């Protein structure tokens, strides 16, 4: 069936009438400016409680120590909050910062905004890396970051209008808060005419962010081919929940038409040269490598299934016979092909795929025809396989409503799978869920849970608190044993796992659990290096990988870049380099890109040094907020080994062989429970050894606290950081 990418239900309504109802609470004029060598040296501070809007300078120290993006966000948040601050305190901030390299149009993946706030899931900083045009357009109005503090009394929007030199806080009572409508309406309200639509970007959440802790933010961009706004998500950790708690309905930036040199780079020729080289690589090799241009990250579904790594039924199993129903061949046909799908100009990886003409089956938009952005791998695996739902239409339905309602697909998938397993084991039943039969495989039940979250009713209110709080609630009510709930509840630090099975990869167990923000694969994805390619066999090898990759990957977030063009496309000769997992040629590209824009020459060592400072700063920040120690870095046993007899039995050959070969124990004659206990003892001990090795390599104490020597080495020996660390030495 052919889908028409120009067709969808018109959701705008009377945009002028809605705009006329706005009441300006505060407005200021400002002088728009373009950055010089990637920096404006100016940020924007807004307080929604007392309606302050002010420009603030960027210091040289900020640029040296924190670089930009996530670094700036963490620094602002540290200064704005205290150890006692929680996500819904007025002093909590929501920071959006694009980074010095963001907005260049030549290198793929250069349009990212970093969102930082204190998370309602974890009570520590969360950082999200998100596409869409907001960050770059704001940067080209003259601001390196936007800091929002305080809470409004009623629903407001913040408008940054570069061409008009105006910043305003406006009450906006009539507009729909749901993201696909909000983005469309506000874009049309603030664009001067049709040609101007791509110069507007909107940040919004959705109605479920009002009632859950897993609210996400959608960052829009105007898709010229589809003639519609598209959305990318700052998904993890409840950014949308903080946004709605501040009574923000939307952030709107109206920027200037984009040109290729608005960063005023030090050496445009250098950037252009490596940009073209990357475009050519994608042209030449994507079809034989990752198919990102046709399938986005959804190409991973069958690969993960083949290696027993696709989470199925709440991470119990790693593959499923029905996976072909949601694999890349399905999405290749379902996504519209042949039109640019970059979430910023110049992204030739173009992985922001869209499934057009999805006929909405449930909820308030039932009967509408809409474009669904994605699904990406994490969504297909999380709300699909992990919940035992292998129907592409239900998957699109769930993806659609997650975005519309402002819900993180990863946390939703993992918490829904947890509820489904609780149902399977009798921890939940119809009486306890208010009649919701939340069973594996049920798309309608999954969507009903979602609509309950959106409407703030029923079991949706409980589930929307996330896995960590559900475990506690269920145990307190006596619905299940705390041990089992803790073993199968897939969260660390309060954040739900993203969608990879880590049982057979010790390094990935660390990749998830030894993270700063919680178990998200963007710090370290080591499964293939560890389990498949066996490149990091010893504890020291694994520790080195868990030192290098999280720090290297941090650098993308400091600069406003996407991780994907680093290793989801590789140069032809990459496999023949000494360290192919690092993709050395692309690392060199990033050094050149940084030098080409900022004028500051760096090499791969300096690149790591930049990131290592911020990474350790974030660890100390966690420590200040009451986490950041060894006790907070342990995974649930489901991430480490088989929790139940069914799990053990399903891979008995593998586990029996490991008992024999690794522990020297003959499994013959032993009960499954005995074998499980031996396996658990061994695997948990291995993980403790891994922590020791990683902490040592990172320059942290055995309790996971950065030493004073480490803080000095990475240039983060500020007195206030030292004071926090000293309490734990």
């Amino acid at each position: 069936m052919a889908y028409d990418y120009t067709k969808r239900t018109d959701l705008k309504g009377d945009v002028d009438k809605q705009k006329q109802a706005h009441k300006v609470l505060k407005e200021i004029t400002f002088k728009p400016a373009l950055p010089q060598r990637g920096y404006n040296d100016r940020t924007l501070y807004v307080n929604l409680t007392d309606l302050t809007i002010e420009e603030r300078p960027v210091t040289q120290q900020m640029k040296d120590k924190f670089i930009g993006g996530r670094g700036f966000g963490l620094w602002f948040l540290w200064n704005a909050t205290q150890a006692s601050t929680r996500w819904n305190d007025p002093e909590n901030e929501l920071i959006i910062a694009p980074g010095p390299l963001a907005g260049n149009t030549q290198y793929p993946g250069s349009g990212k905004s970093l969102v930082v706030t204190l998370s309602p899931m974890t009570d520590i900083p969360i950082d999200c890396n998100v596409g869409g045009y907001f960050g770059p357009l704001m940067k080209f109005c003259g601001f390196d970051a936007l800091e929002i503090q305080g809470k409004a009394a009623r629903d407001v929007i913040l408008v940054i209008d570069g061409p008009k030199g105006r910043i305003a806080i406006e009450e906006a009572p009539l507009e729909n808060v749901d993201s696909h409508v909000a983005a469309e309406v506000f874009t049309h309200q603030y664009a001067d005419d049709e040609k101007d639509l791509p110069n507007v970007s909107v940040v919004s959440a959705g109605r479920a962010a009002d009632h859950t802790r897993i609210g996400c933010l959608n960052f829009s961009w105007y898709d010229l081919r589809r003639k519609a706004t598209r959305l990318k998500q700052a998904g993890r950790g409840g950014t949308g929940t903080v946004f709605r708690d501040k009574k923000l309905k939307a952030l709107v930036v109206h920027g200037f038409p984009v040109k290729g040199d608005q960063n005023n780079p030090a050496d445009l020729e250098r950037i252009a040269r490596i940009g073209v080289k990357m475009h050519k690589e994608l042209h030449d090799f994507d079809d034989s490598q990752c198919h990102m241009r046709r399938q986005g990250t959804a190409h991973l579904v069958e690969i993960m299934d083949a290696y027993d790594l696709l989470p199925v039924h709440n991470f119990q199993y790693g593959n499923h016979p029905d996976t072909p129903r949601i694999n890349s061949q399905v999405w290749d046909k379902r996504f519209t092909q042949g039109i640019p799908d970059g979430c910023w100009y110049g992204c030739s990886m173009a992985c922001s795929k869209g499934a057009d003409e999805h006929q909405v089956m449930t909820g308030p938009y039932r009967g509408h025809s809409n474009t669904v952005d994605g699904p990406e791998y994490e969504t297909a695996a999380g709300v699909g396989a992990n919940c035992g739902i292998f129907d592409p239409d239900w998957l699109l339905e769930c993806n659609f409503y997650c975005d519309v309602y402002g819900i993180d697909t990863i946390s939703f998938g993992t918490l829904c799978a947890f509820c489904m397993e609780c149902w399977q084991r009798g921890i939940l039943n119809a009486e306890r869920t208010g009649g919701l039969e939340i069973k594996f495989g049920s798309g309608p039940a999954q969507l009903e849970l979602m609509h309950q979250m959106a409407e703030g009713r029923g079991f949706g209110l409980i589930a929307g608190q996330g896995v960590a709080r559900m475990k506690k609630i269920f145990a307190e009510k006596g619905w299940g044993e705390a041990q089992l709930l803790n073993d199968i509840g897939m969260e660390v630090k309060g954040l739900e796992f993203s969608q990879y099975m880590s049982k057979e990869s010790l390094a990935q167990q660390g990749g998830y659990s030894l993270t700063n923000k919680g178990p998200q694969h963007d710090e370290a994805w080591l499964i293939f290096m560890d389990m498949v390619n066996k490149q990091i066999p010893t504890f020291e090898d694994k520790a080195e990988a868990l030192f290098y990759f999280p720090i290297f990957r941090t650098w993308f977030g400091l600069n406003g870049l996407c991780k994907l063009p680093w290793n989801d496309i590789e140069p032809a000769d990459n496999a023949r380099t000494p360290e192919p997992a690092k993709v050395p040629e692309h690392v060199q590209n990033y050094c050149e890109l940084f030098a080409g824009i900022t004028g500051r020459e760096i090499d791969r060592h300096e690149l790591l040094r930049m990131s290592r400072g911020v990474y350790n700063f974030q660890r100390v920040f966690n420590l200040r907020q009451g986490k950041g120690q060894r006790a907070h870095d342990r995974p649930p046993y489901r991430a480490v080994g088989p929790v139940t007899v069914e799990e053990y039995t399903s891979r008995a050959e593998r586990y029996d062989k490991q008992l024999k070969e690794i522990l020297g124990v003959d499994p013959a004659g032993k009960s499954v429970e005995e074998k499980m206990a031996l396996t658990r003892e061994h695997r948990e001990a291995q993980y403790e050894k891994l922590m020791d090795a990683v902490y040592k390599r990172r320059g942290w104490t055995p309790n996971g606290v950065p030493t004073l020597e480490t803080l000095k080495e990475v240039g983060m020996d500020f007195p206030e950081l030292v004071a926090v660390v000293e309490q734990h030495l």
Partner: protein
Amino acid sequence: MKVLVGDPGKCKLVHACEAACAKVLHKKTGRPHAAIRVDPVEGQPRFQVCNQCGECITVCPTGALTRAKSGIVLLKKDLCVACYMCVGFCPSLSMVRAEGVLPPFKCISCGQCVKACPEKALSLVEQPHEGLPS
């Protein structure tokens, strides 16, 4: 549409076409500013120049590249964001860029190189463009 075609048998590699093109497009004389490049490959001249296939139209994020009624693919400079995806994705490597010039550029079949070639090695040949990206 008229497509520029070179005859390797006639070309003597004097590069007059490149000079004429650079002059027309950028008022420059050097080959880096020309949209046609001729190089010897295995003893034969090889013409690197746009065949108006239109693949660049499909990758352009801003609609800056369009096919004119004549069939020729044209770049609207005011819409171009200098991302150079068209440069990296051109199958014949004939969308090019030059130092100091922000937008990329290509052959627009203006015919100045045809006139400039002393060996009459270049000609504009009428070809159909139905079914090609527009």
